[in-house]
């Protein structure tokens, strides 16, 4: 047991979060270098870093068969801590430091409208896709629809309405696809949808709702927009969990004639 390889492995596992910091820094350094060379610097370094990280996560998931991407490799387990909800929320709140309160409150009504529209539209699209793929029971339709809102709303709704476990798994996957797509697409879609000011970022956060997707997507677009998007996105999952198993499930039951 006393060979150098084991000794090194002990450092990597005991200091996993420090390893994660070093790793993330290296990925960012390479990405900002790459950004200078690809597409005349039009692609933001952080957009490249996030895309690279997602590719690594996909490889990690395939190799280890785990659920935490690259963090399933023991030596990189710290990535799940550094990228977990605690640090994510802590740093998101920190980005609001120095923001003026009026900026938040001014868009209150549009923000609420965006939240409602976002939840309802995602739910409707998800349920319609499920219907198109042959699902007919209200519980399955509602669960997959809720998954299209976020990967938390999906299983919460599924558990409440008694959906089968494979349907719940699909709903989580749908939410994951959404979060990943928002991370990847936001920097490219931003110029087309006018996502360059606090108001648009607030509305974007409310419509998309996936906190991780919005957090990463806006970081890759313009870091200054992060607090605005995060502000509305933070209400989305709660609203989804509130509406999914209740009003929306009942609406679907009425639509498919299960009542």
């Amino acid at each position: 047991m006393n060979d150098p390889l084991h000794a090194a492995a002990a450092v990597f596992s005991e200091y996993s979060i420090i390893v994660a910091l070093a790793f993330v820094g290296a990925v960012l350094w390479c990405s900002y270098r790459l950004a200078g060379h690809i597409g005349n610097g039009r692609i933001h370094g952080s957009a490249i870093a996030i895309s690279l990280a997602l590719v690594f996560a996909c490889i990690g998931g395939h190799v280890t068969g785990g659920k935490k991407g690259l963090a399933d490799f023991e030596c990189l387990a710290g990535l799940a801590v550094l990228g977990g909800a605690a640090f994510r929320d802590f740093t998101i709140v920190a980005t609001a430091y120095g923001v003026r309160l009026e900026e938040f409150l001014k868009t209150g009504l549009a923000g609420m409208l965006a939240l409602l529209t976002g939840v309802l539209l995602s739910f409707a699209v998800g349920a319609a896709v499920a219907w198109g793929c042959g699902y007919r029971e209200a519980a399955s339709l509602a669960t997959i629809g809720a998954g299209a809102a976020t990967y938390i709303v999906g299983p919460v709704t599924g558990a409440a309405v008694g959906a089968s476990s494979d349907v719940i798994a699909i709903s989580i996957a749908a939410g994951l696809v959404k979060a990943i797509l928002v991370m990847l697409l936001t920097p490219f879609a931003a110029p087309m949808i006018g996502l360059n000011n606090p108001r648009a970022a607030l509305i974007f956060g409310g419509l998309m709702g996936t906190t991780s997707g919005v957090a990463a997507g806006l970081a890759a677009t313009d870091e200054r927009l992060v607090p605005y998007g995060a502000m509305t996105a933070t209400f989305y999952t709660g609203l989804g969990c509130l509406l999914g198993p209740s009003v929306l499930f009942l609406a679907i039951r009425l639509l498919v004639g299960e009542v």
Partner: protein
Amino acid sequence: MTIYGTSFLAFCVVCGLLGGRLLGWLLGLEANVGGVGVAMILLIVAGGKLQAKGLLGPATSRGVVFWSSIYIPVVVAMAASQNVAGALRGGPVAILAGVLSVVACMVLVPVLSKIGNGRSALPDQNP
């Protein structure tokens, strides 16, 4: 001292998350409703008060600003620990539902931005 700033930030986050949990509990949910949002408002309001009293010196400020500058690395770590393989394994229903809901919602961003502008046609439009 720098730690005062970090501690102040942590205090705001904990209070915000408690508030979000409480709101969730009141609504009968096992979820945090708007915790991060409450924490941000707390940070802005309390931070403004402290600044006015001269209690947020440059060293204390650094304790907050550092964490906001570490945001992107945290997001990269988050992306690297996503279950991407699981998302792709979810099959066509999951992928189609995810893709279409993203596209539909993105298309609505400019539409809702306009509605909001019309309702609050205030002169303080430019930030």
